[in-house]
């Protein structure tokens, strides 16, 4: 067992699950999506990316790239939330919500790619 693999695997899968928790629900219904879950997903994703900094292997480079894509999309989604927060009293309106959740879904895809690469790499190496 390798501490680095465990930690990185933990954060990358946690980031995927938080992302999923945020995205799931009707795409245009603001009450199905929570801004704090989005914020936590961003934090976890940033930590996972940070752990990959400095890896010189090919797989490491790919994981870092996928992580950066997820960060970028999630942070954009969070910025949109801040901008559209004043739409209604409850937060962003349905149209703004569609845009925010779409961005978060893109990040979900990048996270899925990361996890698939991670699993593939782990299965390939037998030690």
């Amino acid at each position, binding site marked *: 067992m390798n501490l*680095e693999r465990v930690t990185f695997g933990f954060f990358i899968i946690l980031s995927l699950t938080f992302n999923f928790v945020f995205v799931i629900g009707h795409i245009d219904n603001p009450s199905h999506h929570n801004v704090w879950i989005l914020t936590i997903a961003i934090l976890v994703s940033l930590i996972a990316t940070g752990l*990959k*900094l*400095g*890896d010189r292997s090919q797989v490491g480079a790919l994981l870092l790239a996928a992580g950066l894509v997820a960060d970028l999309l999630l942070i954009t989604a969070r910025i949109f939330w801040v901008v559209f927060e004043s739409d209604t009293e409850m937060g962003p309106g349905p149209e703004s919500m569609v845009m925010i959740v779409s961005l978060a879904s893109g990040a979900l895809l990048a996270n899925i790619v990361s996890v698939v690469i991670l699993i593939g790499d782990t299965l390939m*190496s*037998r*030690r």
Partner: protein
Amino acid sequence: MSLPMNNVYGPYSVCNIGVIAWLYAIGSIIGLIRNTHFVQALSEYRFSRIVKQISDPFFIICGFGDTGSLLARGLSDHHLIGVVIDRDPERIKALSLRDYNIKMPGLCGDSSAPKHLVDAGIKHQQCKAVIALTGDEEVNLKITVMARFMNPDVHIICRSTSPKHEEHLSPLHNVTIINPFEIFAQLLSMAITAPRLHNLNSWLVRAKGVQLGKPLKAPNDKWILCGYGRMGKWLHQYMKLNDINPLIIDPNMDKAPDDGSFINGYADHGTLKKAGLANTNGIVAGTDSDSDNLNILMSAQVMNPTVFTIVRQNHHENQLAFDAAHADLILQSSLTTARRILKYLISPHIQQLIEYLYEQGEHLTNEISGKLKTIIGNRKPHLWCITLDRAQALAMVDFSEQGQKIILGNLLHHPSDRNEILTCIPLMIFRDGQSSMLPSLDESVCPGDRILFCGTEQSERLLRSTLNNAYALHYLVTGEEQARGYFFRWLENKQKDRQTQPHD
């Protein structure tokens, strides 16, 4: 009534003129397309364009006969490109129908014409060698000279059997002359005096039906040699070097050598009987006619079933008949030549190793064969050479520049599991112009070394990945997994510091 008729036929007659003009135009275009000169020019243009676009190392094969096509097949098995020129359009057509692993461009034309050699890429940076294999030795000589003038650095391999040509070509540098008869005689004498080495050599070139560790049992006295032409003379010369005095049978009296026994006549049943076939141990059917050779083989097998038979096969198309004849050793000139050239192109040094083993005697060969047998088993052997430079072994060069020492044994393990060894053996190391044979696994390796390996294709891939992956290399050398990210490396260093200074 006439007016409507005109209206009906008028446009048709105009149409007819249009159709004729069209037909004429199409006819002349078809005529141009079918024009042989036009077709030739077009195919030359297409050929030279394909050659220009080649980005991997390639070889020019002049002459696509038996030897040329066997060589092309061998190159394709090793994923190397051959560019073929042949005079015969049928052969070039056949080339495009072969199921090679890799595309081999072919041009129909005179391969000694400089224009065609340039089209085939003789001045191309990636052109590694020109191989002259046409049936006409004068043409081979011409190709060699032309090629040398057009590219002074390219390696040239020329098939020639005449000593006159050899004299002509020997002053040219970087030219290898391949004499099929001499190679043939060398192989035969190797089979007699060093059967294990012969076995190893045939296994390395992937000869059909050869199993490592099961050498031929060729007798070393009482031989009959049928046919005393160009090849017979070489065989006789090499046999005499090994203290074998064969009885020669040949219909041509003038050729009789001064020393040694000679029987004049065709090697038929009566002559063989007269030659005492019943009491001989080995017979070589070495005439230049395949039917005669098969005939001799048949008589020999009837008269003395235990005799060791070696038969010469002149034409590749008779392969099936020779396979069915159950000779102990079939020597096919085109095949042996193609294998020798291929061996030369893939790893020029393997011949050095064979010669070294020949000098060292059968004991060492036996040891190597045993090792290879246990490691590779029944899989096909694969030879490859790695240069430990930045292009081929980036991680290894970086690692040793940090002052770490790497031994050969470190590299030859599975990059995922240190306890599993790779299925390959290092055969030679080249360092500073010196070559050392059969290095031990404790030998340390440094950047700049060239190492020749024998193993399987999978082991080559794994070894190359180890040499380029810093983490895998670190794991194999030290046995420890290195932390990859900055954070964990920092954590690891901190832990090490705490271990070294427990009281602080």
